[in-house]
């Protein structure tokens, strides 16, 4: 009887072990089956990410190439607008003329004026000019002191040589006269 009991215990243990082993092997098989698509998805994600990075790099290169082709450095002229304080002038629009030909007419929204007053600089024009002398005129419209309509022009003669030319249109307050001041100056 004890011998028989020992044998039955041994058999039970063997069965439980076999059951556990088979369950473990099934789980391992399940895990590996699940791991395979997960690994494939991770590698695909990686490849897509690399591809996206390459597209972004290519796009950046094309953008630079486009700019170089359309605006070569030896003919390029860029005009920027900046504003300082602005207590005496509420900017509405800027019209830019080069050699008496309008090249840009820009209306400013409230948000854009706020951005300029916070120190932002806007590129209002990017184009090409032949070497030689050119006249650049900027007409500023808006509201001046006591909310009166205000329209002022500022002119600059620029000598376009070899190399890019940068011009700034600056609006600032002249405290002594309680009036706005409009400057057109070249960046060195």
């Amino acid at each position, binding site marked *: 009887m004890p011998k028989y009991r020992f044998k039955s215990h041994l058999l039970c243990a063997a069965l439980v072990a076999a059951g556990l082993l088979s369950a473990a092997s099934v789980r391992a098989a399940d895990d590996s089956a699940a791991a395979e698509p997960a690994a494939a998805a991770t590698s695909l994600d990686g490849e897509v990410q690399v591809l996206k990075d390459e597209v972004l790099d290519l796009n950046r290169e*094309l953008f630079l*190439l*486009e700019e170089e*082709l359309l605006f070569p450095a030896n003919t390029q002229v860029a005009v920027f607008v900046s504003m300082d304080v602005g207590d005496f002038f509420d900017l*509405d*629009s800027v019209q830019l003329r080069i050699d008496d030909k309008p090249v840009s007419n*820009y209306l400013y*929204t*409230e*948000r854009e004026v706020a951005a300029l007053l916070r120190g932002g600089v806007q590129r209002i024009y990017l184009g090409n000019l032949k070497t030689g002398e050119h006249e650049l005129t900027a007409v500023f419209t808006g509201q001046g002191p006591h909310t009166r309509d205000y329209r002022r022009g500022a002119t600059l003669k620029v000598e376009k040589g070899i190399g890019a030319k940068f011009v700034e249109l600056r609006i600032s307050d002249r405290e002594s006269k309680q009036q706005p001041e409009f400057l057109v100056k070249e960046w060195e």
Partner: protein
Amino acid sequence: MRLRILAMLLAAHLLPAIAVASGTAVAGQPAPDFALKNTAGDNVRLSESRGEVVLLSFWAGWCGRCSDQLAELEKLQKTYAARGVRVIAVNIDRDSQPVRDAASRLNLLLLHDSDQSVARQYALTDLPMTVLLDPHGKVRYVHQKYRGSDAALYEEELGALLRE
């Protein structure tokens, strides 16, 4: 060979830009940006509506179908404004009287394109012309003219754009 590939890529890159610069409202392309004055005299720039679905309608005072459409657009604006839809009605008359008249009876954002520069940018051929933009500022649907049933179509398209 490398140069030829680069040239082809550059052409592919430039062509959509040229289409936008020459100003056509092409579905899938970014909408040409503009700034115009509203009835209060403030400047409004289209690109400042990024993040919202925009329904842009070009109209004129002499166009009967346009006034029917504006009344429907006002209803759409009321229904969908809280969900992020902005209706912009661009008047192309040289005279500002039709815009002032519309402002007195409609609660819509009315802009005045007196020199028709924006109409040219969008290659306007018929009135009213309706352009629906997604929150990224891309043109998604373009409609010429207006029939009564079009309001339901706009609503369907606005719903689709809001669900994206």
